[in-house]
């Protein structure tokens, strides 16, 4: 396998590792293995049957010749005479050479002539090289010729001998008459020769001589050679043709469709990047191979269609979301602007200082604070919390805020403001929303706060130089629940230097990662860590403390707080000053 990613390859490398070239290579390799195996088997069978045929022919020739000789002549005198002379010659000296003079008389004998004429008949048979009568000299492993009808240069005289392999001749000597006697040998002179033979036995059962037929296997070898070359040539041609056709077929049915799909995919990506609106990259391919590739193509086509639909949906949903987000942002701004948020809030009054802060948990919230002058001497303060959060709470909050401030401007007592508001809201509140409200009116000249509480958190008050403490004030029921309820007023006297802190449940109910609640104790501690600080700083201290407590935990409820510091009239402050020191 190539180590490079296909995208990093050059055109040439891609060609080398392409499917087509791999199919071609595999086909060639497969064909070579198959071809060689078939060749070996073919050659083996060819040579086996041919050699077998030659052995069989040679052997029957020998048998035939032996039986004719048996009928026409007695070979015993000649063979015994020749062997006697031969032994005498070899006995003299192991290295003695053949002496034609000594044996020339044998060729003159009548029985020799007869034998030769009988045997010479067989020389005419196809592939028969030699037919002769010979005797084996066991002591010296030599084949001694007795009669050889051959008239060529290779003619052997009676008594002439040749060394032969001892092992092969053993079988000839010990033959029991069954099967065929043969020996295949490679000779320098004649190449591959197959020698078949039949023994002559005397009355005593001893072998007198063998009729031997040498059949040349040169045809077999040549046949094998030509078979090999023809086969190889044919194989190469067929192999290449086959590989070429297969590759061409694969190109048409596999590679071209895959290339087309791959090209379509590239175009798809390109068109998407460039923003071209083409949606039939895959469906226009028209691949009809009827197999997995057609399936792949139709799956890709389905995918393209589904993606396009999905994208359309996504665009629509995103646009919708964006629109809602824009509206929410706008709603948040409107809501924020509804709450007084310019500081210093009342620069013309030195008697008090006020600061407030609100942070909804979502884009818009249900908490709100409010403060406004009813007349020159009366400041109305509102801290309220609508049940639930988000858009429903925000809508309800807006209505509540307006109704409360309208009622407050009528210069009536806080309990009456709450009662009127409650009755109005209850008259048309099918959704069962409600709001908790703390509403107080500060008499600026005296520091007296008249307040009423409709189910809201306890306010915290710090009297001059003291500590912040919760006031367990008289509680009425929440606003919007049940109509006709009465609320009660109560008074808090704020001496110069006193502070009033109002908040919603988003502060005590802020949770940390372990779902533990912040609680009013922590809130009072944070206020009292720096009770003399100005109103803004006090609120910032609570903010820091709550966010430090909650850590990364998401703010679950709206957080709103308001702090009022009563300073009194200047002359009151002057009176109070020595007391402060």
């Amino acid at each position, binding site marked *: 396998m190539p180590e490079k990613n296909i995208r990093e390859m050059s055109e040439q490398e891609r060609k080398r590792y392409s499917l087509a070239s791999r199919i071609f290579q595999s086909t060639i390799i497969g064909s070579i293995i198959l071809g060689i195996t078939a060749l070996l088997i073919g050659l083996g069978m060819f040579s086996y049957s041919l050699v077998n045929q030659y052995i069989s022919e040679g052997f029957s020739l020998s048998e035939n010749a032996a039986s004719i000789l048996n009928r026409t002549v007695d070979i015993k005198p000649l063979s015994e005479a020749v062997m006697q002379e031969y032994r005498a010659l070899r006995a003299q000296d192991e290295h003695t050479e053949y002496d034609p003079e000594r044996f020339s008389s044998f060729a003159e004998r009548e029985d020799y002539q007869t034998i030769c004429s009988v045997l010479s008949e067989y020389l005419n048979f196809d592939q028969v090289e030699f037919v002769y009568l010979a005797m084996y000299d066991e002591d010296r492993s030599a084949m001694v010729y007795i009669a050889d009808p051959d008239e060529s240069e290779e003619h052997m005289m009676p008594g002439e001998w040749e060394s032969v392999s001892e092992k092969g001749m053993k079988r000839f000597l010990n033959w029991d008459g069954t099967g065929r006697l043969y020996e295949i040998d490679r000779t320098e002179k004649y190449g591959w020769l197959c020698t078949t033979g039949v023994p002559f036995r005397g009355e005593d059962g001893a072998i007198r001589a063998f009729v031997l037929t040498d059949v040349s296997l040169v045809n077999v070898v040549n046949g094998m050679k030509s078979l090999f070359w023809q086969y190889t040539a044919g194989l190469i041609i067929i192999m290449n043709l086959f590989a070429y056709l297969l590759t061409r077929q694969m190109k048409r049915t596999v590679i071209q469709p895959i290339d087309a799909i791959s090209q379509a995919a590239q175009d798809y990506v390109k068109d998407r990047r460039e923003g071209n609106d083409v949606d039939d990259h895959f469906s226009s391919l028209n691949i009809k191979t009827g197999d997995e590739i057609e399936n792949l193509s139709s799956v890709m086509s389905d995918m393209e269609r589904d993606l396009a639909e999905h994208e359309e949906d996504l665009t629509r949903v995103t646009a919708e979301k964006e629109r809602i987000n824009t509206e929410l942002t706008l709603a948040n701004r409107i809501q924020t602007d509804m709450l007084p948020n310019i500081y210093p809030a009342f620069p013309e009054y030195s008697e008090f200082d006020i600061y407030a802060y609100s942070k909804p948990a979502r884009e818009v919230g249900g908490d709100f604070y409010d403060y406004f002058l009813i007349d020159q001497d009366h400041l109305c303060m509102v801290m309220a919390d609508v049940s639930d959060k988000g858009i429903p709470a925000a809508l309800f909050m807006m209505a509540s805020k307006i109704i409360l401030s309208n009622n407050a401007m009528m210069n009536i007592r806080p309990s009456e403001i709450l009662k009127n508001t409650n009755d109005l809201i209850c008259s048309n509140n099918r959704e069962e929303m*409600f709001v908790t409200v703390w509403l107080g009116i500060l008499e600026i000249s005296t520091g007296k706060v008249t307040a009423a509480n*409709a*189910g809201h958190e306890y306010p915290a008050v710090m009297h001059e130089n003291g500590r912040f403490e919760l006031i367990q004030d008289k*509680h009425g029921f929440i606003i919007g629940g049940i109509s006709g309820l009465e609320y009660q007023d109560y008074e808090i006297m704020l001496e110069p230097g006193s502070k009033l802190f109002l908040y919603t*449940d988003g502060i005590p109910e802020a949770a940390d990662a372990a779902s533990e609640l912040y609680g009013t104790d922590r809130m009072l501690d944070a206020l009292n860590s720096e009770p003399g600080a100005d109103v803004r700083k006090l609120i910032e201290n609570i903010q820091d403390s709550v966010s430090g407590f909650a850590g990364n935990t998401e703010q679950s409820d709206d957080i709103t707080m308001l702090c009022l510091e009563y300073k009194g009239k200047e002359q009151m402050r002057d009176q109070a000053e020595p007391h402060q020191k």
Partner: protein
Amino acid sequence: MLNINKSTDGSKLTVALEGRLDTNTSPDLEASLQESLDGVTELVLDLEKLDYISSAGLRVLLAAHKMMSKQGSMKVVHVNTTVMEIFEITGFLDILTVE
């Protein structure tokens, strides 16, 4: 997380709440009550294992209270300190029958 365990005894329905009843879980309780309040004349809310109730939860209680005041009665039992404190602050203590 809020577990709502309902048990009916004739026309009496007891609902035991376990966990937190807040903005996220109160719609579950609202739906659950809406489907089973038909024909109920006595509704008992067992808040023994309720860890926390937010204003959204109070809204569901108020709706149930109004519904039940038309067709029978509703009472809240086993209120623990945390929830009791919220009931006190919001004035629910005066409206609901708490035992």
